[in-house]
């Protein structure tokens, strides 16, 4: 079997922040009652990390990201996604839930650099200040005209998740937001 390809074949760009499309990433959607013990237990056991609080993620990889009051996104190696889905189904037998492999639905970009936060603040109306988006934050928002999620790995490294079909648009946006010399100088770290 051939290898899967990402939307942009792993594009990279050097602007005042470095922008790099990430290799294929395993993603498993889990919808269920996040306050129930079986769902929490299953999610934590299958992911190997604890269930995150709202607007947070736990673990860099594998990771559990909080998507909505009844939805988590499990990040893992691409090849493990099917097994994770099966494990969730096994663990949640008889419990109402939805677990799906959605690894190919999205593109992931990593944006790194001292002023990476500022490049993102040019595109999202969300508060991108270090206080509002500390490391560990998983923020669903929009970037310009498309939905996106921002995963704050640390103060200078962020992952942007968007739908695969708009990967090129997202890459263009990120590049335009990080034109060297257009640093805002607002949150200098």
């Amino acid at each position: 079997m051939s290898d899967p390809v990402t939307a942009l074949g792993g594009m990279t760009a050097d602007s005042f922040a470095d922008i790099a499309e990430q290799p294929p990433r395993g993603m498993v959607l889990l919808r269920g009652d996040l306050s129930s013990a079986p769902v929490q237990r299953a999610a934590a056991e299958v992911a190997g990390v604890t269930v995150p609080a709202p607007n947070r993620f736990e673990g860099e990889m594998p990771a559990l990201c909080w998507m909505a009051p009844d939805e988590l996104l499990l990040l893992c190696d691409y090849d493990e996604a099917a097994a994770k889905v099966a494990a969730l189904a096994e663990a949640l037998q008889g419990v109402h839930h939805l677990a799906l492999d959605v690894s190919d639905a999205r593109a992931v970009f990593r944006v790194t650099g001292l002023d990476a936060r500022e490049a993102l603040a040019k595109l999202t109306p969300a508060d991108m200040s270090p206080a509002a988006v500390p490391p560990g934050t998983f923020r669903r928002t929009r970037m310009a005209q498309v939905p996106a999620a921002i995963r704050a790995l640390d103060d200078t490294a962020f992952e942007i998740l968007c739908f695969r079909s708009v990967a090129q648009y997202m890459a263009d946006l990120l590049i335009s937001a990080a034109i060297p010399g257009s640093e805002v100088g607002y949150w200098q770290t």
Partner: protein
Amino acid sequence: MTTRLARGGRLLNRGRALEFTFNGKRMTGYQGDTLASALLGAGQRLVGRSFKYHRPRGLVASGAEEPNALVNLGEGGTFEPNQRATTQELYDGLAAESQNHWPSLEFDVGVANNYVSRFLPAGFYYKTFINPRPAWKHLFEPFIRQSAGLGRAPKERDADVYEHFHVHVDCLVIGGGIAGLAAALKAAEAGREVLLIEQTAHWGGRAPVDGAVIDGAEADAWVKNTVETLEGMENVRIRTRCMGVGVYDHGYVLAYERLTDHDPHPDLPRHRLWKIRASEVITATGALERPLSFAGNDVPGVMLASAVRDYVVNWAVSPGDRTVVVTNNDDAYRTAIALKEAGLEVPAVIDARTAPEGPLVERVRALGVRVETGRAVAKVKGRAKVEGVAMTMQAGEGAVLEVIDCDAVAMSGGWSPVVHLWSHCGGKLVWDDAQAFFRPDPEKAPTGADGQPFVRVVGAANGAMTTADVLADAGADAQAAPEAAGPIEPVWIMPQGAGPELRSKMWLDYQNDVKVSDVQLAAREGYESVEHTKRYTTLGMATDQGKLSNINGLAVLSRSLNAEIPQVGTTTFRPPYTPISFGSIAGQARGDMFQPLRRTPMHAWHMANGAHWEPVGHWRRPYCYLQPAETVEEAVQREVKNTREAVGLLDASTLGKIVVKGPDAGRFLDMLYTNMMSTLKPGRCRYGLMCNENGFLMDDGVVARIDEDTFLCHTTTGGAEHVHAHMEEWLQTEWWDWQVYTANVTEHYAQIGVVGPHAREVLDLVGGMDVSKEAMAFMDWQDGELGGLPVRVFRISFSGELSYEIAVKAGYGRALWDMLAEAGREVGMMPYGTEALHILRAEKGFIMIGDETDGTVTPQDLCLDWAISKKKDDYIGKRGQARSHLTDPERWKLVGLETVDGSVLEDGAYAVAEGRNANGQRNVQGRVTSTYRSPTLGRGIAMGLIRRGPERMGEVVEFTRTDGTTTRAKIVQPVFFDPEGEKQNV
């Protein structure tokens, strides 16, 4: 003549001379100049022509309120009209042109309007040109459009780039004068996150020019210290060249940062539009000086007194050797002092007050300046430049007492707090009689969602007019000595008894050429509301939005109406404070990023193989694939024939795919679709219709049952997001206790249609699954492997052909496509686009959402009663469909249409009926919904909605054509091809 003084200029760097051009003429200025100060410094007093009368105009102001000095800047892709010379910083190579004149600034033919001005009074559009009616469109309007107007519209695409920036702050302070600095410091010391913005390039506002003394030192020193303190605080950000544009609900504020206007750079963003969420907004926007209304107050050389001293003190520019100061308040005396200190002459201060007294007045007298009290300007002498003023008594009608020779006039009618930002979101004003201005009403601040005020105003913007009051109002720890000042005496026209002759030369609105006489005329004609008067006279409607004219205009109006000023009230203050660039509003949304463009995993292949694109929602789909020397029409016909005769390949990835899972999933889908889904067996597919609550058809698609609890619903390309939202809305608001989860997995899969008689051979060539008739019946689906890739194959058909739709993970979509394309070569496979897809389905009489439906069409209209379950108690739309109008037998219903001559009906053509309606239009009895040339049948085929259509089989109906003729077509069954379905059941 204006000129550069040998010494002084607190903002100038004389070590750096800058070259620029004005109307092609080379001039020199200095770093720190604005274009306005540089023009004056270079002796250029005349800067433009007025809007209506084409009168010569010079600079009046020194800042954002300037009405006259609008210029065209740049050229080609950087050309921009209506730029204020007072807010444009000078840079080397700047090229400016004056506006609204022909053939030249010095000699303008349009000035003839000036001499016929009595024929162009307020509302002249409505009066003079009303009859004969057609003359407006063909004669008057073209003439007026040519003679009026300011800058030219840019012709080229904007070459610059722009961006947005979003921040949340505790406290946003707008205005970097001493009030704003003090307020920012106070907020910062309280530990709040503060953003302080200032529209100019400099901190301190007017205080340094006006000689303020703070904590015993010159204002400049305090400003410098305070800025340094703020810069050193971690919780403070400060920006110059950043203007507060507007204040909106929920503490939302727009600010406009001009990044490179002072130093153009082709690769960097030119403007940055800040979108700020502030818990508190403090406006410290200062005040603007008002002109005085005397005859000839628009002659170049008549300026605001504050602007005169700005030019002298900030930029070492002399407005002329001899400047007469005209005032009704003490503040203008500062201008006399500044001029004297710069070594210039002040022949007289003409003060409308009978007995002015106060330290400033005394100081001017002590400097030996002649102070005339109770006097007024009857008239300014000179046309293109000031030559003198005729002095009269303010109490009189304008009898000239004396003519005083001079080169410039500095006028002050008092000050108006800049209340724009306070007012944008609902802040109210009170009239301060003692100071003769509107100021913010502290009891009626703009309020947020919690009902509490979220805007505070400090300093001159709040009506604090002395340094000491400003600092106290801003809560500063710093102190200034109290100042004694004589009271202002409101003067709305000068002299107060001026007759019509003088009043028709008193300008209120310089930019739109509105005079005192125009407002008075409006009042006589019955305009009582200030908003109506504004629109009738165009007072305050120009690009400056009446910054200088509004208060004077409404005061004149109130006099004419015998009403008090607060009763007449102000016009509405609306954002933006000054015009901002369209580029900044668009931000990144231009060119390739104007809209997101959605691409399937096979997009690049389509591009490389001649795709002729069609936008479908935000997606781009191949309409057809052009081969060399082929027209679009030929390509479409070829693709249809090839699919019918051999096999076609379709990128169907854009179709929506929504997983619905849970114990109540079947019950849920029974409500969503008109037909029964809960009886569908795992492994099988069923076509379904989805209606909205009104009963109108909303979407359609094939539903596959994955297992007992799980369904996969296919939607139209454009319907995926909407249908998913529709499902979630019902689940979250109505059926919140049903156990159902949904997920939109559209983008996780690439989906490929292999369609045509050889479809099975192609799949067999790729290999891995038994897709024989026995193993996979029509409307079956199976998981398996093709070419080593995990796939899900649906045996469904939207073309009437043997057809498989293959879903594969998007990351393998291109790989599978390539394998299929390669395998298919042996059996003559070709890709086909959306138009061939449309023809294939129309030949089979399959409806298309968006063609046969438009939001007003029910499934019954489309004769899809077979897909409406009679067994179910309910489904969304059922009750709507029972309403009398929707059950009316007269409704237009779906039929096939065959032209008598074999031609193709026009898209959207109407079927005409006997007679005409009340509007004289032909009556209609139906319309075409889909129409194509069918390559399979070699003739035009169409579908349409016709009144009682199915009852009228065989009848011939006439259809409109855009050339006015009609085409005859026979009503037939909508299935044109293979009505028994033999081709797909092989």
